[in-house]
Structure formats: C-alpha cells, structure tokens
C-alpha cells in the first residue's frame, strides 16, 4: 500500500514536471507584494534608499521610506537591489512579426497606401516567443506599430503580460503611423532632376492633404448627422474615414517616420498646416542637425542610438549623441528601438544616449516617463508612484549595464515568471546529459 502511494506520488511529480515544461513559462503571482530594502528609482520623485514599495493587485499602493506591512503581503527583500519602473520601447514590431524572413509570420505590413483602419492591436500575438524573451529584460511595455504604405494603421500600446491582446492593451489605438513623401533624392541611382523631385513631392503631399480634407469633411458630416439626424439621409459609413476621426480631432497622435535633415524640415512645415492634429517624429537620425527647429515645433521624438552615421563625413558618435543633442535643444525624447525580437536591447540604447550626452537621469526618463507622456498614459505608467499601474523591475545593478541581472519583473501587478525560451534552452543545454547523445 505504501509502495502504491509512493508510485502514485512519483507519477504526480513526474507528470507535474512534464506539464510545467510544456508551457513557455510558469504561472505568475498576483496579489499583495511588499518590496523592501532596495533603492527605489521613482523617476518623478527622486531616489529613495532603503525604500518600501507596496503592490496591491494591479496598482502600486505605496512608495516611500517606511510603511506598516500587514502579514498578508508577500515580502520581497530587495536589499542591495534597485527598483525601476518597467521600461517602455516606443516603437517596435513586437507581437506582429514572428520571423521576419518568413512572410506568413509577418503581420505588420498590410497592402495599400492608406490604411488608417488597420489595427496593430488585432494582429498582436500574445504568445509570440519574443514576448517573454523581452519582458524578462525589464521592458514591460511597447508600442507595436504597423509599417507599410503612407498611412500604415494604428499602433497599440501593449503590456507584455497577458493571454489576449485585450488584456495586454494599455491603449488599443495609441497613435496613427504615417510616412510622408521625401523631397530628397533616394540615392545616387535616383537620376530625376531637382524639378521632377519637387513636383513628385508636391503631388504626393497634395494627395495626402486631400485625403485629410476628405476625412475632416466626413467627420463634420457624421458629427452633424449624429447631433441632429432629423430629416437627413444617413451617410454611408466608411471604415477608413471613420478611423481618421480620432486622428483629425487630435484624439490620438500621428507618428511620422523621418530621418534626413530635409525630410524633418519638410515634415515640420507640413505639420504646421494641420492644427487639429498632434505629431510625434520617429527615427530622426539627423535630428541633431535641426534640433532647434524640432524643439520650436514642439514635436517629441522617438529615437534609438545603435545605428551607423547617416553620411560618410559624419562623426562616428553622432548616432550616440543624437538623443542628447535633441534634449539639449528642448525636444522631448523617448527610446524606440524599431526592433522585433531584440526589443530587449532598448535599455542599452538608453545607455548609449546616457553616455554620449543625455546623462543617466534623462536617459532613464527617455525610456519611462517621457514615453508615457508622449502617449498620454503618464497617469498609469512611466514612474513609481502611488496609484500607478505596477509595472516595474528589480535589478542587481544599473539596468542599462549589460553586466547587470534583471531579477524580477512585475507587469500590471503580475509577478512575472522570469522564464523564456532562451532561458529554458540555457537550462536544458548548459550541462547536456552525457547519456543522451
């Protein structure tokens, strides 16, 4: 009898272990947590040594030096550790692309030039192998953005924990993603005359302006009908135009990808005529050349640092310095890798910005609160404050340092299993069983 019980017990253990390894990660924890003893980098309210941070459900309920912690809190001793808000990557393809060289797994580029009704939220795969790989590195929230045509669709602001896009979305519709035509030569092979380039540019800009005017008219028409349907014929619904309404009302910002000096200046000129819309620039590789102009236009910039200089004669460190030079001129900057599977490198992009002029404090803002402000979620994310959503990380050192370990991540109050395919492969193969050739 004892033996039978033992066998049953063995079976339970073995099956239990097997089912645990069959899933990508374990279950998260959720409830009440007290993180004590660590250095809390609040971002908005300075740094607290030997601090206390309480989490109750989805929210942070206390950040400070002393608190009475009741016995129903699970305590996490963070002595000698650092607590930071979860990092935000302001532009990625995470969840939309699984393997970029395999087209059937690429869902960020719909066909067509004008697709304001495409929602990245819809295509976001919560179970992408890249999601756990990313979040265990302390990046807890990303903008996932579409990227084709002139109007690519709408980017979603996603937390990196959950089983459905709905449960992960901080904002299903966080921004419209757009490209403007370029008045630059495309490269040495582009043999159009200056006049032809200018004409093509003006023609394309005109088409975009007409599209926006059409959207404005549609919005007026729909608003007029909604306010007073009496006696009028109900206008036909146009899904694309419908999708533009929150854009032309300034409800959500427009992310415009611009890199060259001339493109940036042209984009600034163009945005001046769109009073009813809000703009964000993305890329901005040559932003440092026209930082004053960008600052004057009041357009925040989503930038990274790890790319090669744009012109042959550029100094080698300009990409590293770009965020610092933009900030110095008064531009609000946030870190955006533009990556998919390696969004986990966002903190290192911030580290480069910090080293080459932006400074640690501003670099930290660029990957936390600035991003939250740019996308209008500063009441929820981007700093460690009472009442905010519990997105945070605990590290054994400076999280911009590749040498540091990110030890624990919380997303929306969930204590995330610090596991991913990369970690599982490590654990399986570090000391491969010699018996199993």
């Amino acid at each position, binding site marked *: 009898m004892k033996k039978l019980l033992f066998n049953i017990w063995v079976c339970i253990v073995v099956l239990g272990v097997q089912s645990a390894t069959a899933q990508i990660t374990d279950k998260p924890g959720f409830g009440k947590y007290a993180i004590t003893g660590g250095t809390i980098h609040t971002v908005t309210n300075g740094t607290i040594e030997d601090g206390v941070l309480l989490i109750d459900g989805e929210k942070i309920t206390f950040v400070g030096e002393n608190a009475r912690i009741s016995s129903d809190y699970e305590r996490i001793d963070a002595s000698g550790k650092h607590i930071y808000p979860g990092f935000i990557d302001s532009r990625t393809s995470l969840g939309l692309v699984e*393997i*970029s060289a*395999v087209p059937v797994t690429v869902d960020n580029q719909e066909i067509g030039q004008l697709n304001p009704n495409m929602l990245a939220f819809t295509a976001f795969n919560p179970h992408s192998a890249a999601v756990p790989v990313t979040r265990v590195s302390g990046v807890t929230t990303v903008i996932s953005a579409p990227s084709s045509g002139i109007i690519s669709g709408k980017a979603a602001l996603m937390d990196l924990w959950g089983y459905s896009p709905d449960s992960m979305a901080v904002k299903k519709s966080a921004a419209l993603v757009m490209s403007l035509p370029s008045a630059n030569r495309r490269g*040495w092979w582009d043999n159009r005359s200056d006049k032809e380039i200018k004409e093509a540019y003006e023609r394309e800009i005109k088409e975009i302006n007409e599209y926006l005017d059409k959207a404005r008219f549609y919005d007026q028409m729909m608003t007029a009908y909604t306010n007073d349907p009496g006696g009028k014929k109900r206008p036909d619904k146009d899904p694309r135009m419908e999708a533009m309404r929150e854009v032309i009302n300034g409800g959500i910002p427009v992310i415009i990808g611009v890199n060259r000096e001339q493109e940036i200046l042209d984009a600034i000129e163009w945005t001046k005529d769109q009073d009813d819309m809000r703009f964000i620039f993305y890329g901005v590789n040559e932003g440092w050349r026209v930082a004053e102009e960008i600052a004057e236009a009041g357009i925040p910039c989503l930038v990274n640092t790890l*790319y*090669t200089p*744009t*012109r042959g004669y550029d100094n080698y460190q300009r990409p590293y310095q770009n965020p610092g030079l933009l900030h110095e001129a008064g531009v609000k900057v946030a870190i955006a890798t533009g990556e998919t599977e390696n969004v986990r490198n966002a903190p290192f992009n911030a580290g480069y910005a910090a080293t*080459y002029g932006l400074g640690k404090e501003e670099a930290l803002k660029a990957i936390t609160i600035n991003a939250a402000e740019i996308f209008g979620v500063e009441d929820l994310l981007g700093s460690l404050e009472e009442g905010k959503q519990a997105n945070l990380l605990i590290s054994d050192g400076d999280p911009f340092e590749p040498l540091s370990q990110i030890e624990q991540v919380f997303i929306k109050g969930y204590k995330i299993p610090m596991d991913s395919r*990369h970690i599982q492969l490590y654990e399986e193969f570090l000391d491969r069983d010699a018996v199993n050739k």
Partner: protein
Amino acid sequence: MKKLFIILFLIAFGADLRAQEAGSVLIKNATVITVTNGDLENTDVLVEDGIIREIGQDLTAPKGVMTIDATGKFLMPGIIDAHSHLNTVDTNEGRNPVTAEVTMEESVDPYDVAIYRALAGGVTSIHLMHGSANVIGGQGETLKLRYGSDQDGLRFQDAPRTIKFALGENPTRVHGQGNGVQPRTRMGVEQVIRDHFDEALDYKRNREEYLEAKARYDRRRRGTPPVPVAENLRYEVLLDIIEGEILVHCHSYRSDEILMLMRVFNDYGIKNYTFQHANEAFKVAPELAKNGAHASVFSDWWAYKFEVYYSTAFNASILNANGVVASINSDSNELIRHLNHEAAKTVRYGMTSENDAIKMITLNPAKQLGIDDKVGSIEEGKQGDLSLWSGHPLSIYSINEMTFVDGTKYFDRETDADDQRIEVSVDADYDSAQNFEKIISGRQEQSCMEDAFYLLEESTLQE
C-alpha cells in the same frame, strides 16, 4: 630639387608609408586587461616598433617614444572581429555552389570610412569574409585596420589562409530555389561538399600521374605524350583545405548541419575549423569540444529567419562552459562599433566571467583566425594592437579613447576630426544628403547575402 622630389614623394605615398611604419608608445598607469594574465592595476605597457616589449611598473620611455598617461583608464587588446564584411567591394560570387577559387584579396576597399568607425570602437583586426550564397564560397582576408593605407597595407601579415563555407538556408535558397541546381536541401549540401572533395582528390591523383608521365616523356622523348590534366585552381584550393593549409569558417545555424560538417571533416581528416553564426551550436557543445571545433557567434541575434528561431542569447556562455573556443562577432558595420558591449551580454546571459567575455572578442577570435601567437592578449612579444578605454570596457558608460595598431595610433578621441573620410568625391552634393548612407541598425540586412539577392529576385518560389 631633391627636397621637392622627396616632398612630392611623401605627398603621393604618405599614406602607404604610414601604414608600413610600426609605432612605439609607452602607456602608463593603466589597468591592463591582459586576458592571459589577469588585470594588472597601475601598470605600464611599452610598445617598440610595433611589438609589446615590456609590461610592468615605472617603465621609462626610450628617447623619442610618446608617453600616454592612462591613470584611471583601462587598456585592453585590440578587438578582433572574426566575421565581417566591413569594407568589401564584392561579397558573393553566387552562380555556382562551389567557388573556392575566388578571394576577398582584391575586394578590399581601404578607403571605406567604416574602417575608421570600427577603430573608434576599439577594433584593430577583422576577418573580411566572402558571403554565404555558396556551400564552398571564397577565401577570406584577415586585415589590420591600418586606416589610411592601401589594400596591401591593410593585410595581416602571415595570417593563415581562410575560406568560407555555408550550410542551410542561404545556399539552398540561392542555388536550389533560385537557380534550380543542387543543393536545394541540407541533404544536398553535404553531398556538394563530399563530391567536390572527392573530385579534388581524384584530380590530385590524375594530375600527379600526368605530371610524372609528362616528366618521363620529356626525359625520354619516346612513345605518345600523356593527355594533359590541366591545373585547376578550384581543386587546388579544395586540396589545400584537406591538407590543412586553409582554415574553414563555416556559416551554419542548425545543430544537425553542424554535426554533419564535423562528420564530413572527420572523414577527410580536416581539423581546426570554426562555425560562424552557429546559433544552435549550444545544442552540440560537447561534440564541438570533442572535435576541437570553434564557434564564432552573435551575442543575441535570433528569429530573423527560421533556422535561428530556436536559438538563445545564452549560446556563447553555454559553449564557453563546455570548453568550446567561442567568439562574439558582428557581421555588421553597426555592431562592430560596440563589440565590447556585445561581449558584455555574455555576463548577463549565462554568467560568463568578465575575463572570458573579453576573451571572446580578443584571444578567442585570434585563435579562430590562427593569429593568437601575434595578437589577442597583452603579452610581451605580441604585436602592439591595443585599445584604451575611459573605464572598464564592459561597462556601457565607458568610451574608447585611443586605438593602436602595431603601436601606431589610428584613433584618438581627443583629436578626432568631424570628417574622417580619406576618399572624398568632389562632385557629390553632401549637404542635401544625396549620399545619405544605408543606415544599419539591428539585423535589417543580411550582409552575408549581399550581391546574391538578384539570384532570388526572379524566382517564383514561395518562402
């Protein structure tokens, strides 16, 4: 008149003279990361005529030798990138699965400003490689980044010959999918290699028999002259591989294809080879260690194509822990600018020691290129390839301040000019950004496949 001639001569050939010149320098009071002998604090390193003469304390500079005060700074061996296409003119000769005869020798652009930008990141040597379109591609060139010299001035003297092999998706796409010839599968890749090795060995036998018969005929002048077996450069190179005169660097991803090549090489007696990329090398680390095979891997790139989907950023750490000589490479003009931080990630991913992390971008790639008796660590008698950092080179807050090749300073942040191009096109309209360069960030481009995409463009095959 004579003076004028000398001046003109210097103007015309100045860059080349600089390249040939080995420098002397005394770097004082640095923390010296020797790689082979630990980190030495407050230590001086004296380089004379390109060679590290002395490592110690309170060294004095011989007359005329520049002294640099490096108090509070870190001196490490120059970074070596075992996989680069930094300044190639052509990368792939993609029309045949085996093109062992082609080389990077004439494909070196000495004026590419990318060389300077790599120097700024502390890199002193690169392995300039053929692409991965072919199963047996072309021969590589090991270069020292003596920016300002000509093609010959960049060559790493007495570095062993190398050749690029490629397994998996790239050769099967280019040849099977793109051109309708073998290999289309991983089965085909193995047979292409075996067929060509066998042909080369038959060629050798036939050629030797012919040469002997010809010598006999030439001596005696009797009977029928033998039918010539023409000299074949492709087979000659393949034979040099079999005879161990050329080090193989093999583009590979999946563990099964890595095992396949080791089986093939064991059958032909080929030793001392390196798997490049090798994203799944960690799965067969014991086999790699057993065969003495090396691996040169990315620190964290994965998922950009299917054959790297089941890979891990812990790859290098697993290999290292299993006794495989592993290096971190860039294969990118962007990553090469901060290979120190790519190596630092092995500490985060797998708790590799800091010294082993540094080794992965210095001594280990040197071993893989067969130049570890010359560079890769700071030791007396080795060549003076060094880089000086404001702090520990694995910290993200450290900046490379100076880079030396053969004791000659090729990068100095203090005197770094805004425009470091050597070759300036006078008619280019730079201000309008007409020459806006292809920006490289992350793995947007498969640099290994450059010049080969045209083969795929017209193919109607689905991915």
